[in-house]
């Protein structure tokens, strides 16, 4: 049986493990350096930077979702940005991803966010099909970019 609950401080080790599992699935393990201390400090301190849900299947940790607020200047409203959603490979096909996603959509609605937004890797066809079936709008003309590491220091005018 499936249960979905808000993650608490005691889940920091589990959450860290699940994040590393997602990174491996997304082939980004080499860039993933998050530690339990990071999660404790940033998720469960006085000013949390994110919130997370844990999904359990028959009492066993099955996956998680991690999200935070974003803001749309054009809408003049706060939205929910879903950064991660993950179901462990051995527990797929139980509808856990869909239920987790639906819970995040319910939070979006109940807490008055105007929309939920997320990104998906373009080679992850099953995920893209899944989101399409849910009625999500595909923002085809947007590209994501990031300034990180040495280029970030270069732009800031700091020597690497």
């Amino acid at each position: 049986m499936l249960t979905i609950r808000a993650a608490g401080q005691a889940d920091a080790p589990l959450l860290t493990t699940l994040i590393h599992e997602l990174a491996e699935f997304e082939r980004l393990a080499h860039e993933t350096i998050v530690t339990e201390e990071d999660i404790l400090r940033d998720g469960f301190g006085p000013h949390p930077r994110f919130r997370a849900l844990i999904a359990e299947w028959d009492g066993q940790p099955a996956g998680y979702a991690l999200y935070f607020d974003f803001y749309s200047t054009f809408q003049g409203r706060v939205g929910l940005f879903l950064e991660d959603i993950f179901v462990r490979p051995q527990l797929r096909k139980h509808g856990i991803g869909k239920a987790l996603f639906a819970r995040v959509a319910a939070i979006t609605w109940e807490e008055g966010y105007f929309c939920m937004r997320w990104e998906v890797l373009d080679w992850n066809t099953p995920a893209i099909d899944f989101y399409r079936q849910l009625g999500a709008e595909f923002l085809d003309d947007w590209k994501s970019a990031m300034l990180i590491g040495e280029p970030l220091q270069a732009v800031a005018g700091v020597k690497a």
Partner: protein
Amino acid sequence: MLFIRQAEARDASLLVTMTHEFAEFERLPVKVSEQDLLRDGFGPSPKFQMLITEWNGDPAGYAMYFNFYSSFEGRAGIYLEDVYVRRQHRGKGIGKAVMVHLAQIALKENYCGVRWQVLDWNTPAIEFYRKLGAESLDDRRVFSLHGDAMLRVAGGATGR
């Protein structure tokens, strides 16, 4: 001469004007009001921060950003939602100065980086970001769920 400053409540009307100009440039719908920005940006728990750029005292553009969280890095970062320079002030290096300013904030605050999105037809902007050394997250697709589709998905979680 260029001056970059943090926006304040008294800038709300100017910010709404520039937000509308920017939306027109991006060919996107906009409905933000002064009240929205005052409530969400300049109240007790601001949802975003804004910078105003001035050229010889004349408002030349703005930038709006908030924090995102990188679960893989275990650190917060800057999500640059809007960066806009008014037509008559382009070609003066104002956009670049804003990116430098944000990169400096990111390093000072120990953020993991600066992240943003760009419309794929906006070639000058894409070129500009490439020259800064930004990594184009080409394998990412962006999704959004709102309105009826969001309600439908949310209903799956709550039985409504």
